[in-house]
Every structure is written in structure tokens, then in C-alpha cells.
């Protein structure tokens, strides 16, 4: 029993943290979020040079051959910096093709997805219409098709950009009649996507907590830092509780995805449900702790609130995942 990162995983985490801290400084995130397109080609190139897009893709298809735990490490750090990046859409497409694609489909698309040179994009919700992240500029789209998934080339699809309150990611409503079915079972990729999204929410929530704690130590009212008052400090303690519980469930689900397939369906649902709630409640509470300044456009915390809300509603809401958990514990 060793519920901790290996030295190699720890290195990935600290490298990612340092890289993202210098690449996605708050002013850069703001600039991207306020622009027409939140993604920068330069940033994607830098991320691709680190090998991140192929982190969990097999070496035979040009990836790093690592696992869901490593993917989760990167996604948590990307969430921590609210990094505007097509990373998760690309990772989801890679996981889907790797899980369900034919050998030919894998050979055709995975190397580009792994190198970052020919990005993929995947469906993040089908309610009410399919919404894909980062679909524009992608070389291949993965969309639900009954119980499975199909591959759609961009020229076969009609893309409509949706302006969501979360402007740190680009979302597209996609219509596509045609496409090519993938023969395999997509379920595992769905779970990996949910776990990765849970990790992003853990990162977002951790950052919102850090912002709130820092502010509570500095902001003085009635002659004391507000963090000395229990009305504030107990809320911050509850925020830490939410973050840590979501983190424990997310890491254990990531481990299960790599090492214990039977556990994955319930572990992924538990992680996504808990992390969705943690992401939304902690960002709400961060704004409450910040008071008026937290409600201004000028402060960065609203980007985290909006990203958390969007991520909570993609790949299954907390409510839907809890319904799945209820079934899996025997209520049926």
C-alpha cells in the first residue's frame, strides 16, 4: 500500500507547476480569456514540446506511454492555473480513439494527437446538443454515436462557437451527419475523461482556496485580519475539507483506471461528483471570503468560478454521477 506519487510522478508535478506558473501568469490568462479565441498556438507548441498531449497514449502510437495518474497530475495543474488550453479536449479524443478505435484508426490519428501536431477534440456533453471543446482547428472530432463513438473529420462537420460564461475555453456546438464508427467499447475512455475533469476541478478549487486564504490573512476589518474570525476561518476549513476529499477520490480513481478496471465505473463517478461539488462550492466560498472585490471583473477569481461551473457540468453533472453511484451500490 503506497498512496503517494512515485518520484517520477512527483517530478512531473513540480515541472508542470513551474512551467505553468511562468507560462500562464494571471495577466496572460486574462488576456486570452478576454480575446476572441482563448488558445495561443505558441502555448500549445510549448506544451507539445514537453510531450504532454501524448502523456497517456501508448508509445507505439507516438505517446509517452504513461497512465491516467500522470494525466491527472497535468490536468490538476492546468486547472490550478485556469490555463486556457485545448489540452483536455485533445486528451479525451486520444483516450477515446485508443479505447475504441480500429488499428487503422489508431494508426491514422493517434500520432498527431500525441505529438500535438494534429489535435483531436471530443464531445464533452450531449445535453441538449453535442458540445465539444476546442473543436476549431482540430484535425479530428470524436462524437457520441448511440452506445459508441464515431470519428468526424472537420470538413464534414458544422461548427458553431458558443460564447459561454467560461471564456477560458472555446466551446462549439457541432452538427455532423456522417462520420466513421469506431468498433470498440468507449466506456473506459469516458471514465478517464471524467477522472481528468475531476482533477481539473480539484486544481481550480485548490487555487480558489489559496486565493481566499491569502486574502483572509491580509484583509483587515474591525482591527483584525478577517481570517481570525471563525465565521471566515471555519468556512475556509470546510473549503479545505472539500478540496482534500475530492483529491483523495480523484487520485484513487486515476489509480484504478490504470490498475483495477473493475473499480473504475464507480470510482470515476464518485470522483467527478465530489470534485464537481468541490469546484463549485469552493469558488463560491472564495468569492464570499473576498467580499466586494471578489465580485469585480478586475479580480481574477471569477475566471475560476466560471471554469469550475463549466467543468462541473461537462462529462456528467454531480447529480447524474450520484445517480450512477446509487445504482452501483445496489439501489436498482
Amino acid at each position, binding site marked *: *500500500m*503506497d*498512496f*503517494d*506519487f*512515485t518520484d517520477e*510522478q512527483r517530478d512531473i508535478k513540480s515541472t508542470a507547476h513551474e512551467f505553468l506558473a511562468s507560462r500562464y501568469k494571471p495577466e496572460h490568462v486574462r488576456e486570452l480569456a478576454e480575446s476572441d479565441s482563448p488558445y495561443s498556438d505558441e502555448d500549445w507548441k510549448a506544451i507539445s514540446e514537453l510531450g504532454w498531449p501524448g502523456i497517456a497514449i501508448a508509445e507505439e502510437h507516438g505517446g509517452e506511454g504513461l497512465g491516467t*495518474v500522470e494525466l491527472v497530475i497535468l490536468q490538476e495543474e492546468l486547472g490550478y492555473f485556469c490555463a486556457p488550453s485545448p489540452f483536455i479536449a485533445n486528451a479525451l479524443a486520444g483516450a477515446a480513439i485508443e479505447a475504441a478505435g480500429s488499428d487503422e484508426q489508431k494508426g491514422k490519428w493517434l500520432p498527431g494527437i500525441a505529438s500535438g501536431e494534429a489535435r483531436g477534440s471530443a464531445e464533452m456533453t450531449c445535453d441538449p446538443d453535442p458540445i465539444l471543446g476546442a473543436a476549431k482547428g482540430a484535425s479530428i472530432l470524436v462524437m457520441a454515436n448511440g452506445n459508441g463513438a464515431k470519428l468526424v473529420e472537420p470538413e464534414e462537420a458544422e461548427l458553431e462557437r458558443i460564447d459561454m460564461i467560461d471564456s477560458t475555453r472555446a466551446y462549439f456546438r457541432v452538427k455532423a451527419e456522417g462520420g466513421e464508427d469506431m468498433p470498440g467499447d468507449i466506456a473506459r475512455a469516458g471514465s478517464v475523461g471524467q477522472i481528468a475533469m475531476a482533477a481539473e476541478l480539484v486544481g481550480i478549487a485548490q487555487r480558489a482556496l489559496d486565493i481566499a*486564504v491569502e486574502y*483572509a*490573512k491580509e484583509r483587515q476589518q474591525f482591527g*483584525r*485580519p478577517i*481570517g*481570525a*474570525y*471563525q465565521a471566515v*476561518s*471555519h468556512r*475556509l*476549513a*470546510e473549503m*479545505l*475539507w472539500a478540496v*482534500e*476529499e*475530492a*483529491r*483523495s*477520490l480523484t*487520485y*484513487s480513481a486515476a*489509480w*484504478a483506471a490504470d*490498475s*483495477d478496471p473493475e473499480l473504475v465505473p464507480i470510482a470515476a463517478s*464518485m470522483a467527478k*461528483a*465530489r470534485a464537481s461539488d468541490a469546484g463549485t462550492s469552493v469558488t463560491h466560498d472564495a468569492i464570499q471570503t473576498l467580499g466586494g472585490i471578489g465580485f469585480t471583473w478586475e479580480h481574477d477569481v471569477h475566471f475560476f468560478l466560471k471554469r469550475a461551473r463549466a467543468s462541473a457540468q461537462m462529462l456528467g453533472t454531480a*447529480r447524474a*454521477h*450520484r*445517480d*450512477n*453511484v*446509487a*445504482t452501483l*451500490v*445496489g*439501489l*436498482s
Partner: protein
Amino acid sequence: MDLTLTESEQEFRDEFRAWIEGNHPGKAPRGGDQVQFEFEREWQRKLHDAGWAGVSWPKEYGGRGATLIEQSIFGEELARAKAPRPANVLGLVMGGPVVIAHGTEPQKERFLEPILSAEEIWCQGFSEPESGSDLASLKTKAVKEDGGWRITGQKVWTTFAHEAKWCMLVARSDSEAPKHKGLTYFLMDMDQDEIEVRPLRQITGEAEFNELFIENAWVPDENVVGGEGNGWMVAITTLMNERAGLGASAALGLANSLDELVELAKERGMASDPIVRDKVARLKIGIEGLRMGALRALTSTMKVGTPGPEGSIAKLQWSSTNQALTELALEIGGPEMLAKDSDWAYRFLRSRANSIEGGTTDVLKNIVAERVLSLPKLR
């Protein structure tokens, strides 16, 4: 990262699991009375004879020297088998470890073996009517005399006081010193007329706890632990022992209860009720969150000596989940769940103490705020 057991951890688990299967005494009688206590004492003797009583204790003191993960497995296996608790639980998890950490050689020789064998039961005299969360404000007085100390004061929430031979008692030995500095840790012989034990009836109707009225009781010098004036430091160790490593087995206890709750919901035709489903799923998520957090904390403690932030929330997770679980059982079961002989009614009432005993939820949030988040203190 590897959440499976190592080969030696598996061997440990298999050995203990097989032992329990062959030696399970059945369900303990309830009621907190003599019958229940003797049942639990017999169970501990059985554990001790097979070398399973002081699992966490070092081998040189009659224990098994188990790793933290093994201790956690031990607790999980007990919970899985729904085995009774051993009678001398306070001696095993608090008294023994304190004597091992702070006791003199003669104290180790005198006290440890009878704890393991349940020959001498231990109780804890910390809380007082006016000193609960603010333990260091306690007023029970220790006055120095030739060869020992005279103790006078009142203690409350003392479990097993009727059966106990020894009381872990913290008293004020220096009224001039600052409040944390003037305390001393004593092992007080309960077998003296100067101590009156009165059962404290609780909201379940039974009396798990007692009040102690102490009037000039005697403690010889050789029963001071950790030296005069060091009582706070020694007491903190016992409290840490009370909390360390309980998360995973506590989660298994909750998982057992959740299984029963799921059965209850099905019996009552509520398996497809969306609100019941949502609440059950929240409980499952809370239980697994506790278990996984506990395993993270154990790994961290084994590697670097202390748990990470996840360790600070285990008690909060456990108490809130157990309370929500028993509340849901009453909600699903309807009025008949409130019958006095209903097990769920008992568990509901007992769970109200979960957010008070062993550190209140309110104080634990202060601790998270101050020690984990480094927020300024109000005091």
C-alpha cells in the same frame, strides 16, 4: 502509487482474517453493563493469547510491532468481521502508548502487561464540567505531600470508571504557572474510597460514561508520568494516539452501516426514490473519501512522519457521515424506526455525540484553520 497490499501486508491480513474466522465470539450484548463488559474482557483475553492485543505496540513490550498500514488493516478486519471491541480499549490505544513513550522503566514493567491481558482496565480523567475543549483550563488540584500527591476535583465523561483499576488523570500541580505549564499526568489507582464514581445517563438512556468525584485521593510519586509540570505534553500524545490511523477502519464500519441502509431502502420500496438515491450516493462518496484520505495520510505518515492536510479532516468526515447516515435511516424507515428497541434509533441517538467526542467539530475546524491553513488566531 499502488493501492494494493504488498505481499507481507496481504499475509498479515490473511493471518488475522483466518484467526478471526476461527475465534469470533459473536455479537456483544448491548447496554454498557457488566455483562457486556465481561464479554469484551473475555474477547480481549482471546486476542491477547493469540498475540493480537497490542498490534501497534513495539515487540519488546509485548506488542506485534505492526506498521501503520498493518494497524489499519487490523482495524479494517475487525470492522469487516463486525467483531466486538476489546474491553480495555483506552489502555490499548492511549494508556500503553503513553507509558511506552513517557514512562520510566519500572512503570513499563508494572503497567504494560496487565493492559494487554485486560487484567487491569484503564479509564481517562481529562474532561471536567468546566473544561471540555479548553482542556488546559482544568481545575482538579494535585497537592504535593511526602512521597506523593493528594488529588481533589471532579472529572466527567469517564468511560469504564466502574471497571477501571487505573485512571489517566491530568491535574493542576502548580496553580501559579501559566495554564499549560502547571499540569501533571498521573496514573491514579481507582481502588480507593476517596473516589466516588457516578454513572452519567446519556440521551440513549444508557450510561457509557461516568462522573468522578475525587476528594483527597492518593497518587504516589512513582505514578507520575513524564515528570511534574509536563502533563500537557504527555496528554497531547494520548490524544494524538486516539486519533491516529482510525480513518480506514472507521470507514469500513460506515460501509457496513451503508450496506444495511441500502437493504432498508430496498425493503421499503425506495430504491428508485431520487432523493434517497442522491443521499445514499453522497454517503458512499463520503465514506470512500474518508477511506482514501486515511490511506493517503497513512502513507504520508510512514514516509515523512506526519500526515498531509487530508489527515486533519478525517474526524470531521467520519462524524458528519455517520450522523447523516443514521438520519437517513430514520427518514426511510418511518415512525417504527423510532421505537425504543430499534437499532437505528439507538445509532441515531448515539451519533449525536460523534461531532462532540474526541474533539468537537467546532474546535477541529479551528485546528484546520490555524495549523493547516496558517490563519491568524482569534485568541
